[in-house]
């Protein structure tokens, strides 16, 4: 069964690359451009993994992450935070509030794909 990935980012310039990449890798992909939309999409699309940007209008990635983790129904959802905030303190925060991985921008697309596959147990 194809794994489902939700991409959450307000910048179309990264969304286009990620969407293309993940589709090429054989995932089923959905996109949300802000925090609120992300929460709805999680409910409707039921992704296995979410690529979540931290800095977004309305709800920040941190808030979305916290909201998702507050609901036990999403316990199995994998959360990968993608962010331009590269400071140690922010990495620590991301992991502390329940992100499974924290990747700072810019990143290598190869590494990202490898990371996503490992997390989803596809080798």
């Amino acid at each position: 069964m194809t794994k489902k990935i939700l991409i959450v980012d307000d910048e179309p310039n990264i969304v286009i690359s990620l969407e293309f990449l993940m589709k090429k890798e054989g995932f089923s992909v959905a996109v949300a451009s802000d925090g609120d939309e992300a929460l709805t999409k999680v409910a409707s699309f039921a992704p296995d993994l979410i690529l979540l940007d931290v800095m977004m209008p309305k709800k920040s990635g941190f808030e979305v992450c916290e909201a998702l983790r507050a609901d036990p129904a999403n316990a199995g959802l994998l959360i990968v935070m993608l962010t331009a905030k590269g400071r140690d303190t922010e990495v620590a925060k991301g992991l502390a509030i329940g992100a499974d991985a924290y990747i700072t921008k810019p990143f290598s697309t190869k590494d990202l794909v490898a990371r996503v596959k490992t997390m989803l147990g596809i080798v």
Partner: protein
Amino acid sequence: MKAKHRLIVAVIVLGLLMTGPFVVTSLLVWLDMKEAERTMLTELLLSRLPVGTMMTLFGFVLGVGVLHKLFKQYVEGLLRMAETLRLMLGANRNFRVTIEGPPEVQQLAQAANDLAEQRDVLMDDVDAQIATAKASVEEEKNRLAALMSELAQAVVVCNLDGRILLYNNRARLQFKALSQGPTSVAGGALIGLGRSIFSILEKSQVDHAEEVIRQRLSSGKTPISNFITTTRGGQLLRAQMVPVLAASGEEGEAAMSGYVLTVENITRSIEEEERRDQALHSLTQGSRSSIANIRAAVANLLDYPDMEPELRERFLRVIDDEVAKRSQVIDQTMSQFSDAIKTRWPLEDILGIDIVAAAQRRIDDKLKLPTKTEEIDDALWIKADSFSLVFALVSLASKLQDHYEPRELRFRLTSAGKLAYLDLIWAGPAMSSETFYTWEMESMQIGSESSPLSLRDVIDRHGGEIWYEREKAAHRAFFRFVLPVAVPEIESEPDERSRGKGRPEYYDFDLFKFEDKTIDLDRKLSDLTYTVFDTETTGLEPSNGDEIIQIGAARIVNNRLLRQETFNQIVDPECPLKPESIPIHGITEDMVRGKPNIDVILPAFHEFCEDTVLIAHNAAFDMRFLQLKEERTGIRFTQPVLDTLLLSAVVHPNQESHKLDVILERLGITIGTRHNALEDALATGEVFLKLVKLLEDKGIVTVRQALEAAEKTYFARVKY
């Protein structure tokens, strides 16, 4: 018993002594005799009685004479001497006992005079010592005050109540710059002798710093404490506190009697730091997203070369778009934060013209080369390390002199936006850019003086640039120094020193003993803090629409009139001035228009008067004007008010006039101009200080007594 009475008693005793034994003997013999013997004796005696009586009388007179003489010499003489001695003891130190009378008395007088002589020598000596000590203490005080007033840091000394005992000019200017709202109208009334520092700094923070110092004192550490506080206007102040320790004779730790605060406004440097952070942030974190976008797009293009042309086009657009955005961000950052990114070498704000003048002096002095100035922007402030900059200019001049022997050099100072151009101009042949390049890199030299820095170092230190440029048409060339323009933080006041006489009264160490701020009516008149004020008005009838057009006030602290701490404000009455009143107060329509109105001024004045007793001449008049504004402004002047007119009437009840001019003349006070609110307030202050002494002679010492006495005077009963 009086001396005279004692003389009479002595005479009686003498009489009794001379006649008594004879009379008693005769009586005893008479009683013992027979009848025949008595007859015989009577006969015998009666015939010789006149001789006996004569002899006795003679003896008596002689005795009285001797007695009188002795009395004169010993008793009266000594009494006189006692009076003279009293006089010497009190009223007239130079009086001496006249040496007269019997030898014993003379000796006594001599001894008394000798003692007096000795005492005078001692007293003169003590007086001289006191005078010297006083003079040296005064000198020390003045030296300290002078030192403080010239310091570039803001210094404020307070007692433990937070009352300001001393502040320097810098502190005054700094806090004046800080004051916002109503106080800025008054010219920064916040700082002043005897005022509370807590109107400027947060009390809890000052208390905490004080506590830290006490702890450090008791644990033997260096007693110092730092804190950063925000003012009401949102400015950031860094304050450092060190204690003033009372000199105590006992062993152990000295008690803290006050503290010294050095205050620095760090708003600017903090802002600069923040801007630098922002710049850094926008260059790092801001780049991450962009580069991530580009990187992902590039990776896709590379990894999937066989994608559809449409998609390829989209990825290329992403890259193009992001690169364009990034370039823009970099440009923006550079222009916005150029100041912040520049070198951190401490530069001072200095007038460009001062740099030019200094360079001219040194060139003339060291190189004997004439210099001139061309276009000079004399109001241009630059950020510079003046020493190294002047050194660079002079060393360049020296090099020019060695290589091209110009007849004269010229300076030009202009500005373009945030940049200042300082040009060193000379006429002569063209120089190669290689030459100038070596000049730039060589360490600088003026004659035998050399600097470890090169011209380039100096330029870098200023975050500036330098280049060589030819003005072909004029057959001359110049070096252009490009330097950052500064906005001076605090501008000095040119009229600063002209106001008042002598040294500014920025200090009053006697306030160390100052206690409790609330006005206690039973305190001595000479101990309280006062605000003397006067108003100029459009006319004499406040209830008929006349308005205040000027308020002038000064403070009296510790029996001194502080000419530096004044309130002087013209007020827009929002109604036309009466032409006939203009010659009296000298305030014209032009002067009042555009000035703040009473709604703005009254709160500022109220703050200026805080915690003080008000004084005015014919206070009822001025108070009436203030009271009529109570409803409109909500400002109430509730403190006690003393009226110099009434107090003058208390002191001189029999004088006809108590007009200010007449009182000034009567009390021997000469002042310059009058009928300007501030000048009149100052005159009233002088009058009050004289009246305090005169009231004391009448037994009126406290404020309460003064108020009561004023109320009782005839004038008080004449209602305004």
